[in-house]
C-alpha cells in the first residue's frame, strides 16, 4: 500500500529560475534605457539590485541542476551586476565643501560668453535672478 509520504513529487529543474534571472537582468537594462529616453536623470539603484537578484536566481537554478549553460549565464549576469555596482560607485560625487555659501555674495569673476563677449560677476546683478548650472560637457 502506498502512503502519501511515499509519493515522490517531481522536483523542478529550476529552468524557470534561469529564465527569471536572465529576464530580470535584461528588464533592468531596458528600464534604464527607458528612464534615459524619458529624460529622467535619477540614480538607477534598481539596475544593480535587479541584476544581482537575477544572479542569485540563476545560482539557485544551478543548485538544482548543473549545466554549462547555467554556469555561463551565472558568470555573465554576475559580471554584469559587478559592472553596474562599479558604475554607480564610480559616479559618486564628493559633497560640496567649496567657498560658495548660502547667504554670501557670489565670488567675483570674469569669463566669456559663447560668442566671445565678456561676462562678469557684475552681470549677475543686472538682469533678474540667476540659475547657474555647471555641466560636465557636450559629450
Amino acid at each position, binding site marked *: 500500500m502506498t502512503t502519501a509520504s511515499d509519493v515522490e513529487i517531481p522536483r523542478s529543474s529550476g529552468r524557470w529560475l534561469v529564465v527569471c534571472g536572465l529576464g530580470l537582468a535584461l528588464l533592468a537594462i531596458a528600464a534604464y534605457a527607458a528612464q534615459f529616453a524619458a529624460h529622467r536623470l535619477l540614480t538607477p539603484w534598481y539596475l544593480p539590485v535587479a541584476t544581482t537578484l537575477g544572479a542569485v536566481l540563476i545560482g539557485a537554478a544551478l543548485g538544482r541542476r548543473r549545466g554549462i549553460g547555467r554556469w555561463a549565464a551565472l558568470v555573465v549576469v554576475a559580471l554584469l551586476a559587478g559592472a553596474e555596482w562599479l558604475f554607480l560607485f564610480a559616479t559618486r560625487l564628493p559633497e560640496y565643501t567649496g567657498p560658495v555659501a548660502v547667504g554670501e555674495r557670489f565670488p567675483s569673476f570674469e569669463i566669456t560668453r559663447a560668442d566671445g563677449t565678456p561676462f562678469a560677476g557684475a552681470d549677475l546683478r543686472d538682469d533678474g535672478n*540667476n*540659475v547657474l548650472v555647471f555641466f560636465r560637457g557636450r559629450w
Partner: protein
Amino acid sequence: MIELGELERRHEDFARRHARVIAVSIEGREEAQRTQDDFPHLVVLTDQDRTLSEAVDVIHPHSAPGGGDTAAPTTILIDRGGTVRWLYRPSRAISRLSPDEVLAAVDRHLTSE
C-alpha cells in the same frame, strides 16, 4: 546635455519667474557656441581657463570619458543682488535635478523675496 535640453524646453517658466539659466562648462569656445546654438534661451559661458570653476571649486578631476577633468554638476541660485540663495550638488554624477525641481527651488528661494 539632457539637463540643458530640459531647461531650454521650460525657458518660458523661468522667464515668468524673472530667472535666467546660465550654463557653464570648462569646454572651449567652439563647444560653447555649439551648445548656445542648441539651447538659444540659455546663457552659455565658456570657462576654459577655469577661472570661475576653480573660484567656486567645482572641478571634478579625471571624470571625463577620456580621463580629463570636468565641472561637477552643480546648480546655484543667485538673486538679483548677487547673493547665493541655494546650492545643489547631486550625490552621483549621473543624477540631475528635473526642471520641475529647479523651478520649485526658484519659487522657494528666489521669487519669495
